[in-house]
């Protein structure tokens, strides 16, 4: 996380930042919105991680009767060829969250890097990066996603790479504008006067101030990617053999689950996406409020 610093410095920085983060998190959890968002996201992450272990059946086991409504043996009933829906749900949670997190990792890395560089080193680099961003933002994403997914091999990795590479422009713009305001703050001038190198100012002075913003955006991107992946799957794109929320909805739609009134199959994935979306919003606005309070300024 902090490259290009000597061993001694790394140690002092590490201890400082670890305790700082713990107390920061503790303080932020005092914010009701942040707390509830955090708990919901944590709950889904837990389901996602332990999903394969708590799944009662093999997801590909089709020996059960089709279209069973929920019972104690099948908490969420069964689908059109007798898969246990609860098994698909808990395993699917893991896959969907994994896709979301992986996309978020790529996007956050690219977006933060582009935003930092562009905001701090104005001029040619900034110009080229931001004009690229402008052009990419004009491009409507959905048709582009579809045509890429049609021609590239249908795997989850492809979906992750497409979504990750296409969603960084917006984030880089957010980060850049924040860097631009931070750059004018007195402590940066102080750091410059103390003879810090540009790289050091960027990573040890500006970057820590961006962390809350980066975390908020990263969480939003996780949700956005889950929705986008589900959307692609619903359109019959990506890896349809993968067990996730999107493919659940795709198979429900393509096997006329509505005619069989199989609400137990349709509701869980969609509702989960909605709840995760709300949780991300609570998490984000709560964190924003807390950071605003701490620095005594309202954003």
């Amino acid at each position, binding site marked *: 996380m902090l490259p290009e610093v000597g061993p001694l410095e790394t140690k002092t920085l590490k201890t400082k930042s670890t305790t700082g983060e713990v107390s920061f998190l503790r303080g932020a959890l005092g914010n009701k919105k942040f707390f509830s968002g955090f708990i919901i996201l944590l709950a889904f992450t837990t389901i996602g991680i332990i999903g394969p272990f708590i799944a009662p059946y093999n997801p590909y086991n089709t020996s059960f009767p089709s279209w069973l409504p929920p019972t104690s043996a099948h908490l969420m009933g069964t689908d059109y060829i007798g898969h246990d829906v609860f098994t698909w749900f808990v395993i699917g949670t893991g896959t969907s969250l994994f896709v979301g997190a992986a996309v978020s990792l790529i996007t956050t890395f690219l977006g933060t890097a582009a935003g930092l560089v562009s905001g701090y080193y104005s001029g040619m680099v900034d110009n080229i990066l931001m004009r690229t961003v*402008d*052009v990419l933002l*004009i*491009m*409507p*994403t*959905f*048709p*582009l996603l*579809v*045509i*890429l997914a*049609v*021609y590239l091999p249908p795997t989850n990795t492809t979906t992750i790479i497409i979504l990750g590479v296409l969603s960084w422009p917006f984030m880089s713009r957010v980060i850049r504008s924040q860097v631009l305001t931070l750059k004018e703050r007195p402590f940066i001038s102080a750091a410059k006067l103390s003879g810090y190198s540009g790289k050091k100012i960027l990573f040890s002075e500006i970057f820590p101030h961006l962390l809350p913003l980066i975390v908020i955006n990263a969480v939003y991107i996780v*949700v956005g990617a889950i*929705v986008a992946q*589900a*959307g692609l799957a*619903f*359109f*019959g*794109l990506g890896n349809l053999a993968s067990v996730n929320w999107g493919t659940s*909805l795709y198979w*429900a*739609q393509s096997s006329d689950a*509505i*005619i069989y*009134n199989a*609400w137990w199959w*349709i*509701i869980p*994935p*969609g509702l989960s*996406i*909605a709840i*995760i*979306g*709300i949780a*991300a*919003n*609570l998490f984000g*606005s709560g964190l924003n409020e807390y950071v605003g309070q701490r620095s005594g300024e309202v954003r």
Partner: protein
Amino acid sequence: MITRKYLVTRTSYAVLTSAIALVINFLLPRLVPGNPVYTILLTKYHYLPPNQIKLLESEFGLQNPNLLYQFQRYIIELFHGNLGISYYYFPATVTNVIATHLPWTLFLLGTATAISSLVGVIIGKYIGWHSGTKGETAISALFMGLTSIPFFWIAVIFQLIFALYITHLLPISGAYSVTLVPSWNVAFILSVLRHSILPIFTLVLVSFPGFSLTMRNTMVNQNKEDYLTLAKAKGIPERLIVKNYAARNAVLPVATHIVLAFGYVVAGAFFVEVVFSYPGIGYALYVAVTSLDYPLVDGIFLVITLTVIIANFFADILYAYLDPRVELK
């Protein structure tokens, strides 16, 4: 104010983005390994005599493997409105398929955007003026939740409700009753309107909260402006302050949001069309994707992308014309 610089920048962005779309549309199918004649047509027809393969190769412009030559041909054909022949709707051309499906999508999109921006601005104006109250906080939270629900899931839930619980009230699939022949008579128009209610309602429900929240935020910012303090000090009734002062200034950024959301709403319309089997361009794209109708996928990608880029361009110009304060970059 529309300065020359603004016009030039916007135009160059639109042209550059369109060029990128063209290049993607040209290159992507050609980067896929294999000869399109063999990989695509042979899987469809299983066997073709050699002279026909030759004919197809020349038809595809493949006898000359020079990409630049192919690109030149591609551009020429494009300007003649030739996007190839659809496999699924054979013998219809891609241009034909798009032309028959596009009006339905424009109808859905136009109506839904008009309703949701109107509803969004009115509600946003109200909650923005009353920001900080308990009711406002609750509504804002609800709206944030609504914006994060996937379009297609809402559509599926509506279909479920209207298929099984409130039956026969509203049609849940298609654009008009199958017993009617399309024509400009009352029965047909009524049928079209009835069939459009659920798709439009779904689109409105998921897109208006975003407009409301933007309007709310700009209203809150207006509240801090000096001119509003002056208006209040002059004793102008609150109702008039909201209507004639705050809302007028707050509504312009919402216009930008509506434009930015356009691409998103287009995608939403596609999903809604798939769920309700509505014969628009999104449904055609779904059919093309699931039946591996590559020319149709390519054609729809190009038409939709270019449409959105052009719409954005005109919206930008209109916006600069409406709001003289628009930042000139």
